[in-house]
């Protein structure tokens, strides 16, 4: 194990995979000479040369589509889209082509493509640069969408994504790049499609991914110390496929759930989680499933307004308390009726 940042874990994994497999190469804007907008690819152009680290024109549709075409011929491109906001310019290539080609042609061509891209918010980048729209890709059959929250998971999921024969959208997060954690030195790819119980508990299930899984773990630890609460934390890790079983099993145990998401609430990822819990554990719930999500506005530039729009630790704590309070009321009512 080595202590390193999320950024370093991504960098080291990219480098190791490029050394391991000549078919792995990188494409994206400013990833070579500029060394990446967030420096994930620092030093790789110098080490591997222009063939393996391709700086592209500002043409998301063109270069993402080119990566798909190269993948169809057996290369394993890892595309960096500077932020997930810009992936909208490549939406047709991702949704209509990367996600469709394997099925639409009856399994004749694989698309072993990874699209790395950070979501974010909280950096005063304004409405067009602060969105979390991974939902758009998680909605689409044929895509795989993964979202690590720790440096170790970043490594394990990136290994899995690069070695997978399907298009994988690999969601990073601007706020996580500098977070640190122990990272295994050996290669142990994660299993895509599996969520992780990041913390075991019995009082309530807290569900999140990416930055919100990070927040969930922090809040759970804090409340364990301050309130003696025993909260179970599920880190979804994979948004498509979605590991519904792990969610259901947890809620059957805790009887209450709070879902955290960095996207908008209406039709968001949390809506799918809440529906899943309704489908699989309706009778086990002692309180309505609560969602903590971004305020539904174009993200303002003003720091004050931006902070107000984004979910915080306090928002999560408050949602947990309100949910537990509802559980308590129900338990009291149930107790009365059965006494």
């Amino acid at each position: 194990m080595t202590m390193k940042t999320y950024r370093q874990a991504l960098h080291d994994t990219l480098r190791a995979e490029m050394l391991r497999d000549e078919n792995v190469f990188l494409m994206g804007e400013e990833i070579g000479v500029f060394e990446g907008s967030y420096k994930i690819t620092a030093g790789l152009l110098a080490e591997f040369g222009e063939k393996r680290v391709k700086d592209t024109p500002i043409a998301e549709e063109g270069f993402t589509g080119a990566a798909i075409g190269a993948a169809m011929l057996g290369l394993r491109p890892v595309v960096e889209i500077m932020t997930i906001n810009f992936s909208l310019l490549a939406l047709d290539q991702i949704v209509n082509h990367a996600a469709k080609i394997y099925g639409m042609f009856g399994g004749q061509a694989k698309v072993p493509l990874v699209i790395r891209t950070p979501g974010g918010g909280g950096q005063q980048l304004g409405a067009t640069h602060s969105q979390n729209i991974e939902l758009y890709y998680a909605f689409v059959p044929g895509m795989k969408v993964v979202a690590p929250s720790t440096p170790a998971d970043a490594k394990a999921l990136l290994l899995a994504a690069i070695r997978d024969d399907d298009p994988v959208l690999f969601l990073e997060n601007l706020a996580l790049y500098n977070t640190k954690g122990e990272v295994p030195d050996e290669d142990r790819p994660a299993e895509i499609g599996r969520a992780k119980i990041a913390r075991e508990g019995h009082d309530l299930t807290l569900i999140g991914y990416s930055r919100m899984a990070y927040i969930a773990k922090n809040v759970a630890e804090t409340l364990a110390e301050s309130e003696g609460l025993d909260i179970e934390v599920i880190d979804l890790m994979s948004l498509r496929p979605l590991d519904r079983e792990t969610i259901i099993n947890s809620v059957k145990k805790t009887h209450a759930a709070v879902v955290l998401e960095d996207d908008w609430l209406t039709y968001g990822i949390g809506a799918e989680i809440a529906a899943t819990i309704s489908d699989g554990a309706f009778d086990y719930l002692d309180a309505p499933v609560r969602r903590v999500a971004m305020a539904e506005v174009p993200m303002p530039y003003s720091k004050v307004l931006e902070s107000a729009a984004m979910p915080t630790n306090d928002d999560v704590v408050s949602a947990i308390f309100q949910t537990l309070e509802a559980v308590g009321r129900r338990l009291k009512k149930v107790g009365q009726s059965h006494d």
Partner: protein
Amino acid sequence: MTDNALPTAKTTTAKTTTAKTTTAKSTTKKAATKRTPVKKAATAKVATAKVDGAQLVKFYRDMVLIRRFEERAARAYTEALIGGYCHLNLGEEAAVVGLMGALRDTDYLFTNYREHGYAIMRGIDPNRTMAELYGRVDGVSKGWGGSMHMFDMSHRLLGGYGIVGGQLPLATGAALAIQYRGLDEVVMCTMGDGTANIGAFHESLNIAALWGLPVVFVVINNGLGMGTTVAKASAEPEIYKRASAYAMAAERVDGLDPLAVLDAAQRAVASARAGKPFLLEVLSERLRGHSVVDPAKYRSAEEVAHLAQFDPVPNLAARLVKERILTAAEVHKIDEEQAARADAADAFAQASAQPDVSTLFDYNYATPVANDSRRLPGEALFATVARPTAEVTR
């Protein structure tokens, strides 16, 4: 509008131009509103000098096969045996055989949704092509693609694509893979005239030229994007001139003359193989509507009446007879043989099995994955389980 709608190369039968767009003049206002005639090149003698009887007969056989296949497909479509959309290559046959004739077996083709003829000319069995239209298991895409999405890796047809312009970035990337591996292969990417106005056209031509990729972009300009004329959609209706924006070589050729198309396509492919991508504009005709169901009421009676004289199939038949390469009886025999071939393809398709519903989730993912959804519409995600009473009263 009638004049503007008609491609202008139909009066020329020879290779029309080798104009490098880097030297092409900029668009005048006149050119934007009225299609300028293709220059009769000084090299017109090339085509006549190159006439090769055997080659022309082969072209004729292939063009008639496409013609009869498309007519048979149209019939099956109107009988509701074929679903979805059905875009035909009627009028485009000379372009198809000329373009495909320039490719090696190891070269790749990306095309759009008007692709049946291209699939057959890549060497794919017409039976399997027709079976795909019928959505059957023997179809070239096993019934998953239909008319717009045919694919066969063994014949290096890397897809028909239904989204206008979607194939351009993919073709560019395939060319990148060829370059990455240092191979001697070329990608050809065909599209319609309307595609020149979509962003992917610009992005792909720029990337291809920037990186020196072995790709030929071919615009089949039949004068109409669905019902909209090129003049009404393109500020520069001479589409090959767009290449000058990317310092890319380009030509415009008469798509009704298969030899002229072959000749131009060979130059384009050779250029791409040498690392210089190429834009080839092929002036063609669309004899029918945009798709089988389109009555094309937006075309004037006068325009439609003129169409027949630009039909490349009877024109080539007349030429073969006139130049004494074939007798009228031999031409007729080819027609009958190819009509029988199309009928056989239809019979094969009708006899081919429907896919089994149990295969619905066979192509969810190439790499199997945990928690992959295999739920049919009416199925519940979870069986409804009641909470144990003991727990409720805890």
